[in-house]
């Protein structure tokens, strides 16, 4: 039996109260004023004969009446089970997204996540369909709807749970946004119309860390009928700090300082602020104390290391979670790049071109560019050409030298010929292997770049409108080139009068650039413009002088091994000792699943690169759920609201039952009967007392 208004049952208690109080004490609230209480002591209430109950049966009847009334007002009814909602019987489609990013390696988060997943799987009805995805940088399908349906209904949860239990969180960063979108697209792919299930849910099991990337969620048009519910798992200890390598700009002025700077990042909500950084595997090196308040980061230089010691791993101590406390470092050595300058220019004469070339190429972290200037008239030895990647020719070369330069060009060296004079056309024709006519252009004011191919790698860095203004570079003099007979020539830039300004001619392996004017002040303002140095470096890069270095990568990054220029199959040894052999010609290494030092063993000397955890994984402070709402994620209604709805439904059902049964009427009748009995009994007792008194 249940009651529609159980609060009225308390009325039955009220019946007992006066009786109980009557039995306990008789305390008067009435006051008697008296002159002085100096002769009086307080007395305790005591039971007297009048406290005893008389006519217990009568009292019982009266109490019974009140109890019946209270019971009647409570509206009792007999409970019957609710009829299930037919819509709910259709089952729901659930995509379970389980976070396997590096931050899930903290404490017991993974076991909590597994427990949650198992609970969700267990609570599914046979009509439900479940697909399970794991995600870190990308989402991976573990089990689809088809697999779920194919399984025996009783074993679905257990088998899928077992599949999940066989997994472990990896080291990749969290791309929560793309995972959610993948899940939404999965719904769209499997059931485009959304007809088979009334509810389509994405259940997200994650640590909901601040560093989860929510890219792509903003403005995404969510398919109808999808709701996302988040089941966060929470770490017991909130403190987490991580290490990150601060990469200096490549042309940093601190090139001479080979030191490494690291950023220590402390998650907001941390309880610790004092940390230490030490080199792992190095004895005697003093650790570095770092103070980082919660939610902030500090950049500190690496701890001091003795000159001969070599270490490639920095460790952070003083943190609760150590999954992100190691930083692997492979410090690249600056590479020597040789530039050969052939011409008669004086090194210290600002009116000459060499003056500017010397100053354009500065030593950076990545390379040390050495400009070797040789006179065009002096014989060029083969040793001079060794190791040269870029040749600048500014003067007329003798035949012998032309041959050497031509050979270099065909071997893959980039050559820039600066047309200082129209007479150099012959030499140019010799180098290009075709006749190129050259004449001095008519000097009428100045010329400037009028047409530039910004898609060419040479000018690609200037493609941005902020940098693409070349009109301030005036060319007082230039030469007119005719490359009509050269099919391999491509004009990269033209002057505003239509003359070719910069021509690229492809040789066998090398590349020949012809600049129709010089950059010395007598010819143009090119050397004085901000475009000059980037232009030279672009040429240097195209010549292969500036190579992208193997150094620092994050877990999951693709490593381009092409700069190694190996003709052999590449073999990469991973930090766990396993080796990966790439196919011949394949230069993309994608198996960067572990943080640590990777070594290309097929190269001599060994090429090494470090793979570290993404810095965003260290930001483990919980992400507010409101952030999802802000991004328009269709969040599932709060559990409270669902419970409220269920409660409302149950109440309606109860009211309906009570209305059908109407037991209260019988209770009122019963109370009236008892009241009648009470009246009779009371009357009889009164008459008897009167008679006794009369006697």
């Amino acid at each position, binding site marked *: 039996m249940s009651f529609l208004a159980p609060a009225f049952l308390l009325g039955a208690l009220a019946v007992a109260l006066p009786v109980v109080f009557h039995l306990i004490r008789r305390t*008067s609230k009435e006051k008697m004023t008296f002159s002085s209480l100096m002769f009086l002591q307080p007395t305790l209430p005591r039971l007297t004969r009048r406290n005893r109950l008389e006519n217990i049966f009568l009292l019982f009847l009266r109490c019974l009446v009140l109890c019946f009334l209270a019971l009647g007002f409570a509206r009792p009814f007999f409970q019957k089970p609710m009829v299930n909602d037919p819509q709910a019987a259709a089952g729901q489609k659930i995509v379970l997204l389980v976070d396997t990013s590096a931050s899930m390696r903290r404490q017991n988060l993974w076991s909590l996540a597994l427990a949650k997943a198992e609970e969700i799987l267990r609570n599914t009805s046979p009509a439900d369909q479940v697909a399970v995805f794991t995600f870190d940088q990308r989402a991976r399908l573990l089990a689809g709807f088809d697999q779920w349906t194919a399984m025996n209904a009783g074993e679905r949860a257990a088998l899928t749970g077992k599949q999940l239990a066989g997994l472990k969180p990896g080291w990749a960063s969290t791309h929560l946004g793309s995972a959610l979108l993948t899940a939404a697209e999965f719904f769209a792919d499997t059931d485009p119309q959304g007809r088979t299930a009334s509810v389509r849910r994405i259940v997200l099991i994650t640590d909901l860390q601040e560093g989860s990337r929510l890219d792509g969620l903003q403005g995404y048009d969510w398919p109808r009928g999808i709701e996302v519910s988040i089941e966060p798992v929470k770490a017991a200890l909130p403190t987490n700090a991580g290490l990150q390598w601060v990469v200096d700009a490549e042309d940093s002025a601190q090139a001479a300082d080979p030191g490494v700077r690291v950023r220590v990042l402390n998650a907001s909500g941390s309880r610790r602020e004092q940390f230490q950084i030490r080199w792992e595997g190095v004895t005697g090196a003093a650790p570095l104390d770092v103070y980082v308040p919660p939610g902030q980061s500090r950049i500190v230089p690496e701890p001091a290391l003795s000159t001969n010691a070599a270490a490639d791993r920095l460790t952070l101590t003083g943190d609760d979670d150590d999954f992100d406390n190691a930083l692997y470092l492979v410090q690249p050595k600056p590479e020597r790049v040789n530039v050969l300058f052939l011409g008669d220019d004086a090194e210290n004469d600002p009116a000459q071109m060499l003056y500017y070339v010397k100053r354009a190429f500065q030593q950076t972290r990545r390379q040390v560019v050495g400009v070797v200037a040789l006179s065009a008239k002096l014989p060029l030895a083969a040793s001079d050409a060794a190791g040269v990647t870029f040749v600048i020719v500014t003067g007329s070369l003798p035949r012998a030298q032309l041959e050497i330069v031509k050979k270099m060009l065909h071997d893959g060296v980039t050559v820039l010929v600066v047309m200082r004079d129209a007479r150099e056309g012959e030499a140019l024709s010799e180098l290009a292997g075709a006749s190129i006519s050259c004449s001095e252009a008519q000097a009428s004011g100045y010329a400037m770049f009028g047409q530039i191919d910004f898609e060419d790698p040479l000018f690609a860095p200037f493609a941005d409108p902020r940098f693409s203004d070349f009109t301030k570079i005036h060319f007082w003099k230039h030469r007119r080139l005719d490359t009509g007979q050269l099919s391999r020539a491509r004009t990269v830039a033209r002057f505003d009068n239509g003359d070719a300004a910069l021509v690229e001619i492809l040789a066998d392996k090398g590349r020949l650039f012809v600049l129709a004017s010089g950059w010395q002040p007598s010819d143009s303002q090119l050397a004085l413009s901000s475009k000059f140095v980037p232009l030279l470096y672009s040429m240097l890069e195209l010549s292969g002088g500036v190579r992208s270095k193997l150094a620092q990568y994050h877990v999951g990054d693709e490593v381009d091994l092409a700069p190694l220029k190996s003709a052999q199959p590449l073999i990469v040894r991973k930090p766990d000792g396993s080796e990966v052999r790439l196919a011949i010609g394949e230069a993309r290494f994608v198996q960067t699943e572990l943080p640590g030092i990777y070594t290309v063993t097929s190269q001599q000397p060994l090429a090494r690169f470090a793979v570290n955890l993404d810095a965003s994984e260290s930001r483990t402070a919980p992400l507010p759920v409101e952030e999802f709402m802000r991004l328009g994620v269709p969040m599932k209604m709060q559990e409270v609201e669902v419970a409220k709805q269920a409660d409302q439904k149950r109440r309606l059902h109860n009211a309906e039952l009570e209305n059908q049964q109407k037991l209260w009427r019988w209770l009122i009748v019963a109370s009236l009967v008892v009241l009648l009995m009470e009246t009779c009994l009371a009357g009889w007792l009164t008459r008897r007392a009167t008679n006794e008194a009369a006697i």
Partner: protein
Amino acid sequence: MAQSRFVTPTAPRVAGPLIDPQTLMAIRNLELRARVVVEGFWHGLHRSPYHGFSVEFTEYRQYSPGDDPRYLDWRLYARTDRFFIKKFEDETNLRCQLLVDNSRSMTYGSLGYTKAQYANTLAATLAYFLHQQGDAVGLMTFDEQIREYLPARHRTGHLRHLMLRLEQPAGGKATDLSAPLRRVVEVVKKRALMVLISDLLAPVETLEKNLGSLAACGHELLLFNIFDPTELNFNFDTPIMFHDIESGRDLFIDPATARKDYLNKLNAHIEAVRSVCRKLGVGYRDFATDRPLELALFDFLRERMQRGKGTVKFRRYA
């Protein structure tokens, strides 16, 4: 209601009927009340209060052996051949100071009037009586300190003033006899008859000390201890919350269990006060407010007589 054991054992033999205090208190005017009592008293005691007073009592007295023969009225002896002693006209009048307790406990009363009203009527009666005899009467009302003070005088209008002061309602606090009695010692320099009218619901120790200092100053003391009959009997029947007028304290009392203890303590208190009075030579009378006021006047006079000081006056023979 149980019979009070504090009823005065020696009822006076007065000729007329005594006036019931409840009837008396129905008279609003205090002076009128006092006059009714006093005249009724004279009426019962003598044929006329104005006859013989000056002739037999005031002027002459028959010679008795032991009297000083210098005070014999020889001329009267010549006329009547009897010895009379002639009193001087310039005799010293009695100075009487009435001390009336106006503390809050005096506002209690179960008979339709309070102890304070009864005490004021008593004081008014005494004042009227003494004034009629030509004595100087003063008044001092007090609670924990002196509220009203009228020096003892006998002049026209003084009695009126005194009555007006007595008609002021009692509004004091706790009964603390120490401060007012100390003050009396300071204020009243001439020897006088001090009549203290109070319920004396205060520690006996302080009473003893202060009465002692008054007696030491040469004052003659007479103490009327006023009680309400309920206070003396404690004849309540139901357990009830008692509210102390003086302290404002509430106490749950079951009279059935508390009565015996209460009466014992009250008796002990009265006995202690009586003992103190005996020791100090202070006249003591306990009074329930249901007693006719004539009896109080009678007690007053009898007290005076017992002390051998004449009816009402100190007499000095020339």
